[in-house]
C-alpha cells in the first residue's frame, strides 16, 4: 500500500470526526439517517474501499460518543441509542451530578472502543472459516433472523404476525415498479425502502398532525425549558483514572459480552446489559450512574461488533447495524453488491488497519474535545439549531433517496412504507424485525407461493 492511501485514510477519519461531532450533538438525529446517506455517497463516488471503511468506523465511534452528551447534559437524546439512557440521565441531572457524569460516560465510551475493536476482530477471524458454509444459506438466514428477532423482542406475537405483511408490502412495490417499467427487472430497490422504515415513526407522527382535530389537541403554549448543568473543574483526561475500579469492571464486562451477541438489536442490547448491571446497585444514584456508564461502553461495542464481524467474516449483513446504518458497505449497486463488497475487496490486514486507524483517530480527537468542551458545544447547538430544521432535513434526505431510487412514484412508495412501518413501530415492532423482513422478503414470498 502506498503512503498516499494512508494519508487519505487519516484525512477521511478526521473529516468523519468533524462532521459527526457536530451531528452527534444535535438532539434527535437518528443514527441510520445520518450515517447511511453519507457513506452511500462515498461508496457511489468510487472512493477506495479501505478509505470508506476508515471513514465509517471513525463516524460511528464519534457519533456514539457525542450522542450521549446532549442526553446527559440536557435530557434530550442525541440519537436512538442514547434514548436508552434517558431516564437515568434525567435522574442524574436532578441530583446535580450531570457534569461529573459526562466525563465518566466519555471515559466509558473510550474503554468500550478499546475492548471491542480487538475482540470483534478476533471473533470475526474465528468465524471466517465457516463463511463459505454459511453464505449459500443467506436468504434463509434473513428469514430465520426475522423470526429470531421477533421471538426475543418484547412483542413476540405482534412482531411475528408483522413479518409477512411487511414482506408483501416491500415486494408488491418492487413488482409494481417492474410492472410499470419504472425500474428494470434486475433492479431491486433497497436503500430508500430502508430509510422509509427508519423515518417511519416520524412520518407517522407528522401525518397524524395533518388531521386538524389531532393537531388542535396537540398544541401547547410553552417552549421547552432546558437546564444546563454548571461546570466542574475536572482536568484529568486519563479514562482509566476518571472511572473507579468498580465502574471499569462492570462496563468492561458489558462491553465484552455484547461482542458475541452482534446479531441482536443494539438498542435492545444496550438496555438489557445496562439495566442488568445497573440493577445490582440498590441505591438509586449508584444505579443510575452505573447504568449510564455501562451503556456508554456497550453502545460502542454493539456498533463496532455489529459492523466488523459480519463484514469481515461473512460479507452478508447479518446484524441490525449491518442491515441499517452500515448497509452501504454491503450493498450499494452498482458499486457494491452482496457478492462483491468490502468483505471481498479487503484482506484481513487492510481491514484491521482501517478499523484500528479509524477508531483511534476518532477516539483521540473526539474524546479530548468532549471532555473539555461538551457544554460549550451543547449550548451552541441548542441556541442556534431549531428542531424544525433537523426534522425537515430528514424529510429532505428521504425525498432525495426515494426519488433517486425510482423517481416520483417512489416518493409515495416510501411514504406508504413509512406510514405502515411507523404505525407498527408505535405498536411495538422494532426496527430489527422490520429491516430483517426487508431482506427476507424475496425468498420468503417465493416460499409461500411455490411451497417448500
Amino acid at each position: 500500500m502506498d503512503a498516499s492511501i494512508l494519508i487519505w485514510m487519516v484525512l477521511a477519519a478526521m473529516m468523519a470526526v468533524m462532521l459527526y461531532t457536530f451531528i452527534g450533538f444535535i438532539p434527535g438525529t437518528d443514527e441510520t439517517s445520518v450515517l447511511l446517506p453519507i457513506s452511500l455517497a462515498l461508496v457511489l463516488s468510487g472512493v477506495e474501499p479501505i478509505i470508506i471503511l476508515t471513514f465509517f468506523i471513525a463516524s460511528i465511534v464519534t457519533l456514539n460518543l457525542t450522542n450521549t452528551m446532549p442526553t446527559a447534559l440536557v435530557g434530550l437524546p442525541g440519537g436512538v441509542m442514547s434514548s436508552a439512557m434517558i431516564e437515568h440521565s434525567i435522574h442524574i441531572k436532578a441530583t446535580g451530578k450531570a457534569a461529573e457524569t459526562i466525563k465518566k460516560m466519555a471515559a466509558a465510551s473510550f474503554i468500550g472502543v478499546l475492548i471491542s475493536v480487538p475482540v470483534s476482530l478476533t471473533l470475526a477471524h474465528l468465524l471466517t472459516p465457516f463463511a463459505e458454509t454459511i453464505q449459500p444459506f443467506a436468504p434463509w438466514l434473513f428469514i430465520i433472523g426475522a423470526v429470531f428477532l421477533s421471538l426475543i423482542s418484547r412483542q413476540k406475537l405482534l412482531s411475528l404476525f408483522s413479518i409477512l405483511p411487511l414482506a408483501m408490502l416491500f415486494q408488491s412495490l418492487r413488482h409494481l415498479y417492474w410492472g410499470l417499467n419504472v425500474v428494470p427487472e434486475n433492479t431491486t430497490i433497497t436503500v430508500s425502502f430502508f430509510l422509509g422504515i427508519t423515518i417511519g415513526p416520524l412520518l407517522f407522527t407528522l401525518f397524524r398532525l395533518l388531521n386538524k382535530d389531532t393537531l388542535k389537541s396537540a398544541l401547547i403554549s410553552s417552549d421547552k425549558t432546558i437546564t444546563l448543568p454548571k461546570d466542574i473543574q475536572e482536568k484529568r483526561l486519563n479514562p482509566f483514572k476518571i472511572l473507579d475500579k468498580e465502574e471499569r469492571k462492570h462496563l468492561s464486562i458489558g462491553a465484552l459480552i455484547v461482542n458475541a451477541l452482534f446479531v441482536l438489536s443494539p438498542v435492545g442490547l444496550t438496555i438489557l446489559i445496562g439495566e442488568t448491571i445497573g440493577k445490582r446497585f440498590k441505591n438509586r444514584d449508584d444505579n443510575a450512574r452505573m447504568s449510564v456508564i455501562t451503556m456508554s461502553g456497550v453502545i460502542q461495542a454493539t456498533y463496532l461488533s455489529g459492523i466488523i464481524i459480519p463484514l469481515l467474516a461473512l460479507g452478508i449483513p447479518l446484524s441490525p447495524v449491518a442491515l441499517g446504518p452500515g448497509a452501504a458497505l454491503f450493498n450499494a449497486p452498482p458499486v457494491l453488491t452482496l457478492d462483491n463488497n468490502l468483505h471481498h475487496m479487503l484482506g484481513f490486514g487492510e481491514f484491521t488497519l482501517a478499523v484500528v486507524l479509524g477508531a483511534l483517530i476518532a477516539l483521540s480527537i473526539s474524546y479530548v474535545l468532549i471532555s473539555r468542551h461538551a457544554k460549550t458545544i451543547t449550548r451552541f447547538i441548542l441556541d442556534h439549531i431549531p428542531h424544525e430544521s433537523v426534522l425537515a432535513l430528514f424529510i429532505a434526505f428521504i425525498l432525495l433517496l426515494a426519488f433517486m431510487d425510482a423517481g416520483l412514484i417512489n416518493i409515495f412508495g416510501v411514504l406508504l412504507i413509512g406510514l405502515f412501518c411507523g404505525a407498527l413501530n408505535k405498536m411495538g415492532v422494532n426496527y430489527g424485525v422490520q429491516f430483517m423482513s426487508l431482506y427476507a422478503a424475496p425468498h420468503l414470498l417465493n416460499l409461500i407461493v411455490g411451497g417448500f
Partner: protein
Amino acid sequence: MSKNRIEIWGDTVNPKELVLSILIISTTTMSAHLIAPADNRTMGLFFGLGGAVLGFLITVKLFKPKRIIQEEEEV
C-alpha cells in the same frame, strides 16, 4: 401566550415553521439534485446532499429554536 407549539421527539416546534422548513429544504435539495448531470448517480447524490445542507442553513437563519435555556445555579 397563544398556543402555537407542538412537541415532537422530545423538543418543541412551531407547526407553521416546521412546514415551511420542510418546503424550503425539500426545494433546495431536489433543485440541486435536478441540475446535476442526469446520467451520473454519484453527482446527483452529492448535489442533492449539498442542496440539503444549503436549505438547512437557510432555515437555521430564518427560524429560532423554541427552547428556554437556563444555567444551573451554584449549589
